[in-house]
C-alpha cells in the first residue's frame, strides 16, 4: 500500500516537472537555447495567481488566466529585449543572458513581494480516500496529472496540425530554410516563448498548489529539475519531456522511500547519467550522427 502511495506522489511530482519541462523543451527545440529564466517565470506565475486570489479576490480560474496572461507578456518581453538581439550570437552568450534574466526576476520579485515566504492556498483542496483511508490521493495531484496529459496532447496537435505549429517545426529543423519558405522566424520564436511562458504560469499554479509555499527563489530548483527531465526524455521532444518528467518524479520518490532520503537527488542524477550513456540523446530524442 505504501508503495502505491509513493508511486502516486512520484507521478504527481513528476507531472509538475513535466509541465515545466514541456516549456523548456519547446523553447529549446525552436530557439536552440537553454532558457534558464523559465523557472523564474513559474515563480512569477505563482505570485500573480496568489495575489489575484488573495488581494483582488478573483476566483481561481480567473486568477490562473490572469497569471497566464501576465506570464505570456513577460515571456514575450524578455524574449524581445534580452534574447532577440542575440539571435546571431554564440549560444553561450544567450545562456549567460538567460542567467542574467533569471537573477533579475528573482531580485525584482524580492523587492516587489518581499522576502517572507507566502503560504499558497491550493486551488482545490481535499483528497480521495481509498482502501479504507489507507491510500489518499489529493485532488491537486489528480488535476496535475490531468493537466499534464491535456497540455501534452494539445501541444502535439498544435505542432502537428496548425500552420503556426508547422512553422515552429520548420524553424526547429532549419531556420534559414524556414525563412526562405516565407516563415517569419522572429514571430515564430516570440510565439514559442508566449506558449512556453503560459505553460510556466500553469506549472506555477500547480507547483504552488502541491508545494504550498511561495518565495522569490521558488522556481529555480524545479526549473533545474525540469531541465534535467527535458534532457532525460530527449530535449526538443514533446512526449520525451512528459516521459522524462514523470520518470524523474517517480525515481525521486522511490529513491527517497526505499534507498535514502539524503541521497535522493544523487540517485536521480545517477540514473540520468547512466541513461545518457546508453542513449546519448535521451529516451525519446533523435540521435543525429554527425556527417562529414
Amino acid at each position, binding site marked *: 500500500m505504501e508503495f502505491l502511495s509513493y508511486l502516486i506522489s512520484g507521478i504527481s511530482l513528476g507531472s509538475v516537472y513535466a509541465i515545466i519541462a514541456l516549456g523548456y523543451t519547446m523553447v529549446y527545440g525552436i530557439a536552440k537555447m537553454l532558457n534558464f529564466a523559465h523557472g523564474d517565470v513559474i515563480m512569477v506565475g505563482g505570485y500573480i495567481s496568489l495575489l489575484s486570489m488573495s488581494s483582488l479576490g478573483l476566483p481561481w480560474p480567473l486568477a490562473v488566466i490572469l497569471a497566464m496572461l501576465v506570464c505570456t507578456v513577460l515571456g514575450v518581453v524578455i524574449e524581445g529585449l534580452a534574447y532577440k538581439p542575440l539571435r546571431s550570437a554564440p549560444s553561450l552568450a544567450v545562456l549567460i543572458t538567460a542567467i542574467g534574466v533569471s537573477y533579475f526576476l528573482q531580485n525584482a520579485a524580492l523587492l516587489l513581494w518581499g522576502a517572507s515566504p507566502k503560504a499558497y492556498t491550493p486551488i482545490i483542496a481535499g483528497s480521495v480516500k481509498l482502501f479504507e483511508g489507507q491510500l489518499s490521493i489529493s485532488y491537486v495531484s489528480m488535476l496535475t496529472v490531468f493537466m499534464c496529459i491535456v497540455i501534452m496532447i494539445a501541444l502535439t496537435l498544435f505542432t502537428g496540425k496548425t500552420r503556426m505549429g508547422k512553422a515552429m517545426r520548420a524553424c526547429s529543423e532549419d531556420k534559414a530554410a524556414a525563412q526562405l519558405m516565407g516563415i517569419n522566424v522572429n514571430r515564430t520564436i516570440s510565439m514559442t516563448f508566449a506558449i512556453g511562458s503560459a505553460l510556466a504560469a500553469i506549472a506555477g499554479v500547480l507547483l504552488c498548489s502541491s508545494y*504550498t509555499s511561495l518565495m522569490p527563489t521558488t522556481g529555480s530548483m524545479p526549473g533545474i529539475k525540469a531541465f534535467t527531465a527535458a534532457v532525460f526524455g530527449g530535449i526538443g521532444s514533446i512526449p520525451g519531456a512528459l516521459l522524462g518528467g514523470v520518470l524523474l518524479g517517480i525515481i525521486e520518490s522511490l529513491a527517497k522511500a526505499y534507498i535514502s532520503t539524503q541521497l535522493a537527488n544523487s540517485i536521480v542524477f545517477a540514473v540520468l547519467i547512466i541513461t545518457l550513456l546508453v542513449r546519448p540523446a535521451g529516451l525519446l530524442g533523435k540521435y543525429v550522427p554527425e556527417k562529414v
Partner: protein
Amino acid sequence: MKKVISLVMVMALVMCLMAGCGSTNETADPTEAPAEAEAEAEVETASEGGSFYIGGIGPITGDNAIYGMAVMNGAQIAVDEINAAGGINGYTVEYKFEDDVADGETAVNAYNNLMDWGMQVLVGPTTTGSAISVSAKVYEERVFALTPSASSPDVTAGKDNMFQLCFTDPNQGSGSAVYMGANMPEAKVAVIYRNDDAYSQGIRDTFVAEAANQNLEVVYEGTFTEDTATDFSVQLTAAQAAGADLVFLPIYYQPASVILAQANAMGYAPTFFGVDGMDGILTLEGFDTSLAEGVMVLTPFSATAEDELTQNFVAEYSARYGETPNQFAADGYDCVYALKQAMENAGCTPDMSAEEICNAMVEQFTSMSFSGLTGTDMTWSAAGEVSKMPVAVMVKDGVYVTAEA
C-alpha cells in the same frame, strides 16, 4: 575583434565600479573616524557627542532573506528607540546592516566593509555558517560580536568575544528530547530534518543522542535538502507507516508549513513538535493556522504574548514593516538592548577603540543578567553561550499558549 569590445566593456564596468566605490566611500568617509581622525573625533565627542557604530550582518537577498530582514528591522527599531531616548551614555548609535546572502565568503566581505565604515560592535551574523566564518575574524581582530540567531556551538567555540543571544542547537535538541521524555513518555518519534543545513542537522544530532536517554523511540528519520524540498509526502507516508505518533521538525517554518499542509492533505495527524525556527508559522502570510492546531514549539518569543514590552514591539514592527515580527526580529531587538545595557554598565564612550569596547563587553556579558523580549534574566557563560531555557508552547485556536509542563 571580440577582445577589443570586451576590453572596452570591461573598462566601462571598471568605471562603473570606481563610481560605485567613490560614492560608497563618500558616504563612508565622515564616519571613518576611528582610523583617520581619532584625535579630531575625541574633540568632537566632547563637544557634539559622537556616535557608537554598531554593524549588522545577515542575508537580505536570496533564499534566507527573511531572517536577515527580520534581524535588521528588529535591531533598527531598537536603535531608533535608543536614539530617541537619548542614546547610550548620552551618545547616539549609528547602525548599518550589510547583506551576506547567508554565505560565508560574502559575510566576511560584509564584515570587512563594516570595519571600513568604523564598526565598533557587531550584531550578527544571522546565520550559522556565516557566523562561524566571521567569528574567526572578530576573534583575531578583537571586535565584540553578539549573534542574534546563529545557534551552533561552533560559532562561539574557542572565541572569548563571540556571544550568542539565541539558544544553542544542543540546548534545543536535547531540550526537546527532555521535554518529550517528561511529557510524552514512550512516544514513537519520527524526525524530518534538512540534512544540508547546519542548524537543522545540529539539532537533530543532539536530539537523537538525548532521545536514547529519555526512553523515546525514534522510529523513522527522513531528510530533505534544498533541492528536494518540494515534496514531503514520501517522508510523511514512511513516518506514518512506521507508526510515529510524534513528528519532530527541527527545521525552519517555511518547509514546516508545507509539511503540515501535506500531512493534512493525506490525513496524517500526529503531534508535530518544532524548535525556534518554527516560530513565525502562525504569521506566515496566507497560512491556514488551523493546520498548525496542536503543534508544539520550543520558542523564546511569541508575538502574541501579553506583556507590555512585546506588545509595544509588535505594534511598532507591524506599523513600520507591515508584518508581524518573528523570533529573529525579537532577537535582533534584544541584541541591541543587551549591548546598550553592557555599554552603560561599563561606561563605554564612542572614542574607545573596538578592542577596548570588546574587552569591556566580554567582562560585562559574563557577569551581567539581561531581560528582554526573548527571555528574562539571561546570563552568559564565558564560552559565550546564553542560558535561557526554551519554553514549550502549543498552538491553540491560532495562538500560542504555554503548554502544561
